[in-house]
């Protein structure tokens, strides 16, 4: 494997079973939460995954973090296949990969003081450190997230902090072990605009200082464009487009991305040209594995879209798209 690649995901798949029908007539249908997802993240890079709720972005992150078993596929982290190694080994690797969760009100134990919360990861992974060393690390971590003076915060409980401060503590908990990789799952979606910017800048700062690699999950394209070097757009469990942020924003090539970009870039254009950009379709995650997942809402669909799922196809410069007919209609519209 290429040395500069930290995380590589190959043909990752996760299916859930959805039960329906009555007691006597149980039907089990497979739901494709994540379907043949491939991507890699280079060292020091931030890859953003964007998509609507239920598109599989969080499931992907949870599988990468080994919080969920995959159905098939492989995840290579620093050359180790996370899907096949033993639990003890996974625990050792966890020191290098940490996660920041969405809701800072849910993820901090209300009965623990900040110092206890931040001590947990050290107690789990750095057992041999003397306790005064640990305390020093905790103070360092609190200062690194710009809560100063750290002593003021050590013995507080989470309910004594504001939302933004809590999310900072959650970030401190993730970086205290000096990991090389962080998965951030919508870290700012619960926060107000005025605090959000601070958290985003803090994450960018930490990346610079610690050389972090990040998987950044969001539903907000403008946040993603501010944070990420590359963006992967997911729709119903599949990556429909992936590429450098500039490419995705300036020349989106999948009809879904085009609609998404036009909403954020120029809402009035979207309002006037709504029918040309997206159809009022239903999202059905139980649909069979035939055809393109976007076909119910795609204004450019052709016959082939109903019968065959499109493969992801490179457009050059790291930009790739999964659409049968992007070349046809891109010509038409331009």
């Amino acid at each position, binding site marked *: 494997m290429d040395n500069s690649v930290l995380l590589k995901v190959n043909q990752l798949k996760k299916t859930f079973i959805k039960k329906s029908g009555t007691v006597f007539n149980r039907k089990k249908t497979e739901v494709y939460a994540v379907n043949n997802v491939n991507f890699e993240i280079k060292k020091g890079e931030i890859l953003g995954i964007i998509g*609507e709720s239920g598109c599989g972005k969080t499931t992907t992150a949870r599988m990468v973090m080994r919080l969920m078993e995959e159905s098939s596929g492989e995840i290579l982290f620093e050359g180790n296949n996370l899907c096949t190694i033993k639990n003890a080994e996974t625990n050792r690797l966890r020191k290098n990969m940490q996660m920041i969760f969405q809701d800072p009100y849910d993820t901090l134990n209300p009965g623990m003081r900040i110092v206890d919360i931040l001590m947990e990861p050290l107690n789990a992974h750095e057992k041999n450190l003397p306790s005064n060393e640990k305390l020093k690390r905790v103070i360092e971590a609190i200062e690194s997230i710009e809560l100063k003076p750290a002593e003021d915060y050590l013995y507080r409980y989470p309910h004594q902090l504001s939302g933004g401060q809590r999310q900072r503590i959650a970030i401190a908990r993730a970086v205290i072990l000096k990991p090389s990789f962080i998965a951030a799952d919508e870290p700012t979606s619960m926060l107000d605009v005025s605090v959000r910017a*601070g958290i985003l800048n803090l994450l960018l700062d930490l990346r610079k200082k610690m050389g972090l690699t990040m998987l950044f999950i969001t539903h907000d394209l403008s946040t993603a464009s501010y944070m990420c070097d590359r963006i992967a757009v997911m729709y119903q469990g599949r990556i429909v487009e992936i590429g450098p942020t500039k490419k995705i924003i300036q020349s989106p090539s999948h009809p879904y991305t085009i609609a998404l*970009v036009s909403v954020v870039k120029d*809402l009035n254009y979207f309002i006037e040209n709504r029918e040309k950009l997206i159809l009022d379709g239903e999202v059905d995650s139980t649909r069979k594995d035939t055809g393109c997942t976007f076909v119910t809402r795609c204004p450019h669909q052709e016959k082939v879209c109903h019968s065959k799922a499109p493969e992801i196809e490179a457009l050059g410069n790291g930009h790739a798209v999964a659409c049968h007919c992007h070349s046809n209609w891109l010509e038409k519209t331009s």
Partner: protein
Amino acid sequence: MSTVLSIENLSTFFKTDKGIVRAVEDVTFSLEEGEMLGLIGESGCGKTTVAQSILRLIEYPGKVVSGKVILNGKDLLKATDDELYSLRWKEISVIPQSAMNALNPVYTVGDQIIEAILLHEKVSKSEAVKRTKTLLELVGIDGERQKSFPHEFSGGMKQRVAIAMALACNPKLVISDESTTGLDVLTQAQVIALIKNLQKKMNLSVILISHDLPMVTAICEKIAIMYAGKLVEWATTEEILNNPKHPYSKALLNATPNLSDPDREVVSIPGSVPNLVNIPKCCRFHTRCPYAFDRCLNESPELREVTPGHYTACFLEGDKNG
């Protein structure tokens, strides 16, 4: 154009064990016919309380303590219950926050819309059924689906049903209270597109309550920005974007990432929103304001017109122009 709604010095306080929460204080703005006004601010700044005060929906321990809400020449705060009953739905209606929970799960959506029509207008049932069908088609749902229950619709469609319901009695003023929050980006845009198109088609006046600055700046003609229970700035969208006066408005614009300019650094606003319990007389933004001076700590700035049509509540702006 004539003024549809004007709100003057509206104050709504809540009585709590810890003291009086001045949730909305001295809010003044007005709305022209066919205009879309975006009311924005962070969570807890009093946007929804303003909406509820307009509709007289504030309940104990809250109370509208002063001010006027004048709808077509009539002060809603002085209206009797009967008068209000005839005004709601017909003159003024609401698209509620989270339409997912606003619909009754045990009645079909058609029945719910018909109920509203029958209660407020003297029409026959068959006519109400017919109107419900046209209403649903207006918002892009098959008219036959009025026989469906709310759980048979997706989130975006429920939102459309809520919009259809708000329009049931041809109101002139619609208040949309964060009605697209919680929907997916594209669904949200589709719902907003629907509201905007209906507004143009039916010459509605709309108050769009939201915390999504980019969305509001894209579709509203005027914007009112609230901070901690106070209205800090009220002007046309171009003025707010190109010439914001209040430090909070400026900071808010700087804190929002913008797709057309992704390299610009977003700047957060230091500090946090003050506690509104027994808040002393002061500019409520002074704890986070880089330009705060003595006067901001002791006196509360009043909303004043700095340039024609541009109102702001800041001592810095007031002093410059006299």
